[in-house]
């Protein structure tokens, strides 16, 4: 169950995060940012917090200067 949503400051950050997370072996989906999180028409990353190493994820993104926020995913 992909239950968490990562949001970013810009589409460029989403693209950068996507590349980094694929290289780091994470499984995730690119989705439009759910309306209950933001009314911007931005993109987000959806993943499963149970099967993903969230602290490693946080470390790689922070190391690459990508600022992000984590939300629960609800439709």
């Amino acid at each position: 169950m992909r239950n968490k949503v990562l949001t970013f400051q810009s589409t460029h950050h989403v693209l950068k995060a996507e590349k980094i997370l694929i290289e780091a072996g994470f499984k995730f989906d690119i989705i439009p940012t759910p309306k209950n999180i933001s009314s911007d028409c931005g993109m987000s990353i959806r993943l499963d917090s149970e099967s993903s190493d969230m602290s490693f994820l946080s470390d790689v993104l922070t190391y690459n200067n990508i600022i992000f926020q984590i939300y629960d995913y609800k439709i």
Partner: protein
Amino acid sequence: MKTVDAKGKLCPVPLIMTKKALAELGQDETLEILIDNETSMTNVCHFLKEYKMQVVTEKQGNIFRLLVKKSGNIPENAPVEDFCRINTPNLSDYVITVKRNRMGDGAEELGQILIKACINTIPDLDLKPKKVIFLNSGIFMCLKDSPVLESLKKLENLGIEILVCGTCLDYYNKKDQLAAGRISNMYDILNSMAEASKVVFA
């Protein structure tokens, strides 16, 4: 023979009960499942077939009796909820056609995340399409290494048909890597679009 009595139970309970009972069963043993509503019966059948189990269904009065031979194996983390298709009245009459592996004109990397987000949104739409068609470089969305494979499988489980252009698979030499959808030809594709109430090009 072991019996799962799922009468009076609504989705996903019959699916969970079935999965649990099959896990306790030996290979090639038979399980009987009793269900009293058609939706759950269809969902359970779909689930079993996905995991290569042989199923025979019969209706006795208001009860569906399913006989399942454990001819396959269901992984412990099998996503039963994904098979829980609660009558989909929202399955609409339109078709989405994906003509390439990106959305819109402009920067290619942007087009690529747009198409991923687009396909990943279809399972969550209130108004779902009847079919999704993939043409030309759009077929890359249906291959083994596709980033949207899970969403496509979800769509298939919802009963949405996925048609993939066979000529295109052949041209790109990717036939052996198809992981979602069924190979289709121009006749089927044009017919599907002609029959649809409308066609949405992604």
